[in-house]
């Protein structure tokens, strides 16, 4: 226990789920590009580019789900406004991509994006300054969601807003942002959002190479995000965060400022969500205020619940499974999808309180396999 070992080795030694998760990610990172580039198109194993992008999109959702799980599964805060951070990260990236269009827009203005020309802007609003630089946009991708989370969390945690109250005001937060971004005069393109992107860092966004690179970046981001979260939850800080989740008053009586711990985790999660949003936007080619809608945020919660909260990789799994189902059903029978999604919410909470991962563990337990000890207990919490 006391002997020093690099964190990643310790992690992979103790946690079976993590091992599988990292292995699958690595496999995807290699196999998907190979199946696209090296396997001939006639082969059944060929992966078309849209498939690569689709999986890339799922991976950004997976990162988002991991960050949400950090807040919900470990900190015990059910955030119904996590989409706000995802959306802000996405908008930061979208602003960079907009400015990359330069004078190639429909109106051909050298600086102003099309929607600003259309809305009769005379000059660039101050908050668009700097977004022509990638490094600046990348900084904003984490800084803006982080700052919002910091201010919101500081106010909320300091005055001990907890439980459903907190959930409801997080929902109000994202709802307010949605209303604001829908306004044309807010300076972010109103209803239509930001779209018609051309290239990123000089690479054409529609080229196959860029798409594959974005996919690999997404997979890498998921892996790094996962390690970061795993590192946090396995540290003494993580242990404390779970203690706060289970018994806030006890933690305070021990002399910890629980609000700082909550704030730390909340801000980290918001930043990760921002990164997920930033990777999402170039792959789907649009960001609009719909990303802030409360229903989006609450849908994320069901990914985590479905996969199994408090495990991190379960959240990622849930994100991929639910979104795969969504892609499939919205194409095949769109009117059925909402029934399924609604049914998932009800079914998972009633019958799968610990999600797919919990169910698998239970089955393994019944089969007499050794219990997975690397996970924090997520006994049904009152």
């Amino acid at each position, binding site marked *: 226990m006391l002997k020093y070992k690099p964190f990643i080795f310790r992690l992979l030694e103790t946690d079976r789920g993590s091992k599988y998760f990292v292995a699958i990610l690595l496999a995807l990172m290699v196999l998907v590009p190979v199946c696209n580039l090296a396997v001939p198109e006639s082969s059944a194993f060929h992966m078309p580019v849209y498939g690569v992008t689709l999986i890339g999109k799922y991976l950004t959702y997976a990162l988002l789900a991991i960050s949400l799980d950090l807040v919900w599964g470990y900190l015990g805060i059910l955030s119904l406004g996590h989409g706000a951070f995802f959306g802000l990260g996405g908008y930061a990236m979208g602003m960079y991509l907009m400015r990359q269009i330069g004078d190639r827009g429909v109106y051909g203005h050298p600086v102003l994006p099309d929607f600003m020309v259309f809305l009769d802007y005379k000059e660039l609003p101050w908050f668009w300054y700097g977004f022509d630089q990638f490094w600046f946009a990348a900084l904003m991708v984490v800084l803006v969601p982080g700052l919002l989370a910091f201010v919101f969390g500081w106010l909320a945690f300091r005055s001990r*807003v907890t439980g459903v109250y907190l959930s409801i005001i997080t929902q*109000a937060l994202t709802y307010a942002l949605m209303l604001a971004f829908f306004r044309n005069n807010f300076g972010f393109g109103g209803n239509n959002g930001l779209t018609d992107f051309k290239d990123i860092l000089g690479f054409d966004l529609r080229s196959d190479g860029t798409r594959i690179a974005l996919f690999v970046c997404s997979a890498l981001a998921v892996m790094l995000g996962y390690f970061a979260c795993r590192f946090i939850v396995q540290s003494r800080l993580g242990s404390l965060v779970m203690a706060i989740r289970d018994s806030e008053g006890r933690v305070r009586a021990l002399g910890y400022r629980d609000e700082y711990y909550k704030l730390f985790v909340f801000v980290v999660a918001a930043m990760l969500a921002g990164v997920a949003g930033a990777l999402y936007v170039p792959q789907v080619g649009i960001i609009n205020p719909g990303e802030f809608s409360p229903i989006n945020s609450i849908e994320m919660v069901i990914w985590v619940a479905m996969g199994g909260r408090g495990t991190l990789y379960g959240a990622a799994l849930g994100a991929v499974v639910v979104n795969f189902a969504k892609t499939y059903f919205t194409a095949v029978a769109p009117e059925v999808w909402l029934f399924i999604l609604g049914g998932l*919410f009800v079914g998972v909470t009633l019958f799968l309180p610990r999600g797919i991962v919990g169910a698998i563990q239970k089955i393994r337990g019944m089969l007499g396999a050794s219990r997975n000890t690397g996970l924090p207990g997520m006994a049904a919490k009152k």
Partner: protein
Amino acid sequence: MKRLLFLAFFSLVFLSGLDAADHTNSDSLIQSSFRLLSSKSFADKATAINSIAESGSSHAVLVLSSILEGDLYYHKKNKNMVLVTETTPRHYEITDPLTEELVSTKSKKELRKKYKKVGINNKLRGLLNEKLAALTIYSKDKSTRLRSTRKLLKNLNPSTVELLRDAAPRETDPQVKELMQVCIAVSDARSKDPEIQLGAINELAGSLYPEVRVLLEELKTAYTDSVAADPRLLPAVDSALRATSLKVSFYKQVENIFFGLSLGSVLLLAAVGLAITFGVMGVINMAHGEMLMLGAYTTFVVQQLMPNSIEYSLFVAIPAAFIVTGLAGIAIERGIIRYLYGRPLETLLATFGLSLVLQQLVRSIFSPLNRSVITPQWMSGSFEFNPALSLTYNRMYIVVFALMVLFGLLWLLKKTSFGLQMRAVTQNRNMAKAMGIRTGWVDALTFGLGSGIAGIGGVALSQLTNVGPNLGQAYIVDSFMVVVFGGVGNLWGTFFGAMILGITNKFMEPMTGAVFAKILVLIFIILFIQRYPRGMFALKGRAAES
């Protein structure tokens, strides 16, 4: 429809006033003028109008007003005059203007073929207005006099002013008299004699009629641009305008408060059911908005089932909606929520899933488009307190209805044995159980009650907004805000929360625009909850922590 009322109204007024023998005689006078009306010459028509106006017949007003509104036609061949009313789109009823008997019903095409409208020009229109006014300002009915005087104010000319100068001293009703004097003063304000002008302007100070305000503005520009005949005129106009605008802005505030109260009532109706399920039971019901939606759709279905008695449909819809959504609520509680007590976040998720299912269900059954719910006659229109302030009936009914629901609910909770059991279960479940209360049953009924109230709220909402599958979504965040802002577990808190939010919203709207006002209110609540985590009416001490 409007004309029918007009008809009923005037026949009453005149029949009571006139001798029956005289009646037939005067009708024949009208009959004889009808020939001239079908003439092409406007001069002939003017003669006809004059003689109809002087006939003294009880039908004169009806005939003249239908000429004015373009409802009087004549048969192309026999030149008989008829009244034409559109009953259903493109279908017309044709009646005799004097006997009021139905002649026939015609389609638009047939009507065009056989009948021709009695056409008028602006000059005739003026004449008609004048004659109608003269006929009606001596009416026995006060509101007729008031209405026709009001009409005259819009379109004053020397002859009508003379008419009014005669009528005003004889007028007994103070309200009508005041209006008549305003008319005269408006005319006098343009007089050549500064003394008369000054008197008139002073009299008009503080008057709220838009015509008066226009006049005063005009005079002000005229006197500012060029020197007035008398130096006292400009200050008089100024002070008259000031008095008027002061009053107008006062009534604007009153109107804003009323709008705020009516918005607050809508919020109250939407949130009060939630105050029961969330506040009393501690259950987060994200499908609460869909209960509102179900209530609104119940209204729609009820109206479909009784298309001939729309006027009464709401009285059927209210209990129907209560029963439908109440039963839905009981089913939700028994089927899902009872397995999740003590796990509020899970309840939230499960009921959210349910809301998705309910929305999609409604979309599948009723189509994704909005459905139109008809507003009964007695709820449409508005009540005019004065020219600057008129309040619509539907909003007034909503305010009253919301209060009735609130008090009904308070009574139910405080005075009935069900309310007692409910409060007992909330306070100490085990003790209540030990005392023989069937807690499961009480839970289900409480949840049913909360949902049923939401259904009633839905009926009210159907009168104000579009009824569509997303109706509930639009209100769920607001409802939560109201309950959380007001303080959980306190119906009065919900009441004040709803009203304060409603009024704040309406007062901010003119300054910031509706959407931005809403954003600001949301931000305000977020900050408010952080200062007072348990709302305005919070419980304190150890009891609050459980």
